């Protein structure tokens, strides 16, 4: 049987047709509806000339229509590229141009944004706009039709006119790409992590088993589609025939409102970055809510500060607590279950041991293997969960997907995570820090070099250094230190405005400082250590 992500849906639709697949509030799409609507989207994409392997953009917040779009793209044999509607147009255009997106699936709210991108993305041929009521109903046809030069605007009624029966697997095989997730790149351009069906399924199958998902579960992650955490609720829930619940817009901003929603939506499995859980623990008034349905709380993406995890586990002692670890390039590759009753942790919990069909090993600076506590090394990952590489960047791919140094007999790829780890007494890996200029803020990866490159794009900025400032809630805040031409009279607001037009909001510096000159080391490099000290 074909090992493809969309088979998770067709199997669940055959087994549990009437069960809820995606819920928003009291309304839901059943597995049968999700299956049929995504068949129609798949056919509509083929009608637009999409061929196997093509990249199709999805410009949408997480929603039922977005899940229909994801499966529709896969059923067309294509590969989806999530586009964050909150990203600046210039960044979206860069991603669409880099990945060669020719068709975009949008919703009523983002259709105009998608069509406007055609100005800077000339290869964009068509925008398919999902209808209201999660795509069950046809949307009104646009009154004036598309602009003569712009992409074709395909109304939802054209999608609903397509047959709803099953599509075959066509030419797609498990090593083909399912999606490309763009992450921060150190040279100033986001890089596209290529994930195959096999790599995604390696995670999804393990994750559904690790969380023990069943048809009874109601699974939620607030992570947007371009963040790899969303692979769990979209695909692992589907494998189990569980219900994926979408957090209403703006609810996760307000901690007590989120806690109230968790109660009402009867969420049983939660997956997010630690900062959302920290907000819940510190401002969510958790003891005031009935959350006994919640049986697993899973966190990933950054280090969970021990004191906040203690508080969360004390206020909410019922669920299992799982720490999942893995860069986008490897999917989740190690995991650790926090022992029940831990409320007095003094250090962040380990990242744990390797997941199924995955091997994680650490290489010391001398090239040996980290074998016991006290030894430090960089974590490498091998296995079928690895990315295929970075889209259109073989050189970068070769640098990160290296030959497994401990396999002499044949050439096997291993991913260098750049994360430094050691072992604890129980054989769990413990995260120590990064080798390079990457930091995490709100669970998002930020290459300091990408922020610096955006700053350098300003004509009046001569030198720019971006430093991470540790922050308990966010992981890191970003501090920019700038040397600018005095004559330009550059202000902090101008710098921020400049950044906001180029970078997603989580990459915009929190603090901007001006210096006449940057301190230098003896080798004439910018003295980052001194700048960091100066900022304390």
């Amino acid at each position, binding site marked *: 049987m074909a090992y493809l992500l969309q088979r998770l849906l067709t199997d669940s639709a055959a087994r549990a047709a009437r069960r809820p697949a995606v819920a928003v509030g009291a309304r839901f799409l059943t597995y049968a509806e999700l299956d049929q609507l995504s068949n129609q989207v798949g056919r509509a994409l083929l009608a637009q000339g999409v061929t196997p392997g093509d990249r199709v953009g999805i410009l949408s917040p997480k929603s039922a229509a977005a899940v229909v779009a994801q499966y529709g793209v896969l059923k067309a044999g294509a590969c989806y590229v999530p586009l964050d509607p*909150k990203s600046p147009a210039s960044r979206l255009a860069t991603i669409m141009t880099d990945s060669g997106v020719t068709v975009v699936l949008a919703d009523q709210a983002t259709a105009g944004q998608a069509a406007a991108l055609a100005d800077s993305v000339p290869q964009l041929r068509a925008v398919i706009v999902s209808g209201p009521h999660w795509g069950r109903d046809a949307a009104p046809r646009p009154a004036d039709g598309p602009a003569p030069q712009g992409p074709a605007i395909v109304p939802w009624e054209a999608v609903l006119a397509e047959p709803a029966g099953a599509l075959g697997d066509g030419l797609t095989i498990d090593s083909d790409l399912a999606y490309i997730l763009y992450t921060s790149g150190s040279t100033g351009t986001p890089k596209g992590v290529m994930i195959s069906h096999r790599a995604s399924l390696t995670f999804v199958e393990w994750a559904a088993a690790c969380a023990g998902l069943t048809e009874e579960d109601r699974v939620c992650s607030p992570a947007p589609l371009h963040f790899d955490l969303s692979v769990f609720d979209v695909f692992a829930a589907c494998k189990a025939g569980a219900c994926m619940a979408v957090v209403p817009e*703006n609810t996760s901003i307000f901690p007590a409102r989120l806690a109230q929603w968790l109660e009402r939506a009867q969420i049983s499995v939660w997956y997010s970055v630690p900062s*959302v859980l920290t907000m819940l623990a510190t401002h969510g008034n958790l003891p005031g809510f009935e959350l006994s349905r919640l049986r697993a709380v899973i966190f990933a993406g950054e280090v969970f500060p021990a004191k906040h995890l203690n508080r969360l586990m004390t206020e909410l002692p019922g669920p299992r607590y799982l720490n999942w670890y893995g860069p986008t390039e490897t999917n989740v590759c190690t995991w650790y279950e926090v022992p029940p009753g831990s409320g007095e942790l003094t250090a962040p919990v380990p990242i744990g041991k390797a997941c199924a069909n995955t091997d994680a090993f650490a290489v010391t600076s001398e090239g040996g293997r980290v074998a016991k506590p006290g030894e430090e090394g960089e974590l490498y990952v091998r296995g079928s969960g690895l990315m295929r590489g970075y889209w259109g960047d073989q050189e970068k791919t070769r640098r990160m997907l290296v030959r497994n140094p401990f396999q002499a007999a044949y050439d096997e790829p291993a991913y260098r995570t750049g994360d430094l780890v050691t072992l604890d007494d129980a054989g769990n890996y413990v995260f120590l820090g990064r080798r390079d200029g990457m930091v995490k803020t709100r669970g998002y990866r930020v290459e300091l070099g990408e922020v610096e490159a955006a700053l350098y794009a300003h004509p009046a900025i001569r030198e720019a250094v971006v430093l991470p400032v540790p922050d308990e809630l966010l992981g890191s805040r970003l501090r920019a230190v700038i040397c600018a031409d005095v004559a330009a009279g550059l202000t902090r607001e101008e710098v921020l405005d400049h950044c906001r037009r180029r970078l997603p909001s989580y990459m915009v510096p929190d603090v901007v400082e001006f210096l006449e000159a940057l301190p230098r080391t003896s080798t004439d490099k910018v003295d980052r250590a001194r700048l960091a000290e100066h900022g304390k």
Partner: protein
Amino acid sequence: MKGVSQLEEVINDYVSRELVQDASLLPLGNATSLLETGIIDSLSLLRLVVFIQQRLGITVDDVDLVPEHFDTIDAICAYLRSREAGRAGQAVGHG
């Protein structure tokens, strides 16, 4: 408590200066939705709460962190005035 225009000015000034990411939203109206415009997210909400605590000496209770109180500058000020009035009432009661 600050007068009507003064409180609005303090909050508007802080939100405009520190939280608005998209310069095209400025000048910011006191009735503009901070949620629809994306000005308030989980991070900026907490920054605003810290500012209110430090600048006005009002601690926002966790249960009051709701969209109804934080969607517009007018709503924020109305909420802050209700808090202030409650505190004044309490002070009288204990006096």
